[in-house]
């Protein structure tokens, strides 16, 4: 891996960890559970990757599939879009590893780029999750907390119901 790729990988990892930390801090029980699942999947993927054994991709597929199932079960209960989106992205990243046309040597680099793009999208989903959690929290308060640029955040910013 070139120094540029390594730097990019660390930047993506840091971006993901910031998003996950915010979710663990600001989220409610199911948000934290989902963030925990993603964090565990990320850690295990790295651990398996670093062992350097043959067929490590099978392990990554297994971890991604298990994470997908866990995220799906959490999404059923949590009622959060970010968890639905993260589960969908996990499913896609699992499929990328098994897609034969992508694992062929000619398109291996495309598969790697795709995995990185998926990782970036997943990280962006974490920040979307933080926004969703805060918006839902403010909604539960009747829109009375948290001034915003678009509506001033006063009582009149509360959801119109008629």
């Amino acid at each position, binding site marked *: 891996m070139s120094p540029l790729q390594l730097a990019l990988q660390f930047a993506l990892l840091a971006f993901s960890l910031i998003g996950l930390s915010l979710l663990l801090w*600001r989220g*409610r*029980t*199911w948000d934290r559970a989902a963030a925990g699942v993603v964090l565990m999947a990320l850690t295990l993927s790295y651990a398996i990757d670093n062992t350097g054994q043959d067929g490590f991709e099978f392990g990554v597929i297994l971890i991604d599939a298990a994470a997908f199932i866990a995220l*799906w079960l959490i*999404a*059923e*209960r*949590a*009622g*959060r*879009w970010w968890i*639905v*989106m993260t*589960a*969908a*992205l996990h*499913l*896609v990243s699992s*499929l*990328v590893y098994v897609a034969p046309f*992508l694992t062929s040597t000619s*398109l291996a680099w*495309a598969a790697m780029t*795709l995995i990185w*793009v*998926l990782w970036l*999208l997943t990280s962006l989903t974490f920040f979307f999750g933080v*926004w*969703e959690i*805060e*918006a*839902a*929290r*403010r*909604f*539960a*308060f*009747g*829109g*009375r*907390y*948290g*001034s*915003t*640029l*678009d*509506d001033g*955040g*006063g*009582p*009149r*910013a*509360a*959801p*119109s*119901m*008629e």
Partner: protein
Amino acid sequence: MTIVSAIDKLTPREREILLLVAERLGDKEIAQQLNLSPRTVQNHLHRAYEKLGVSDRQQAARLLSNSYSGQSSPLSPAPLLPSEQGVLAGSDRVEDGKTPWPVPFYGGYLRLGRWRRPRRIGGSVLLLILGGALAWILLAAAAVSLIPPVLEMIQGLR
């Protein structure tokens, strides 16, 4: 007791349920969205009726709606009572005592209506997940299929 002071006595969860009532959601739908039992939703609603001095859901929702849309004096920010910070009913924690952060595009969130939370299709969100995954796969396939012609074009320009 004024309307404002009555509404300030509502817990965040009671307000949340009343807002969903105002969106014409039934008890079962509200329970599904908030991951509560229908019985817990009914308990919250009855407690809200008592606090607002009304007898049914329409009156309660209308009262809350009027307080938000027609008040001349702003509602004072309701500090969380200790009782509101913990368990209100059943085993569900209503709020965790965190004050919401400023939320950009909150208006957009409100405009989502019932889609603020993922809707269950056939009793599950699996179809939404699969649909999302399919959309990403199609996008990725389109991107991958575009790569060779783009590379050829770049080489042609050189």
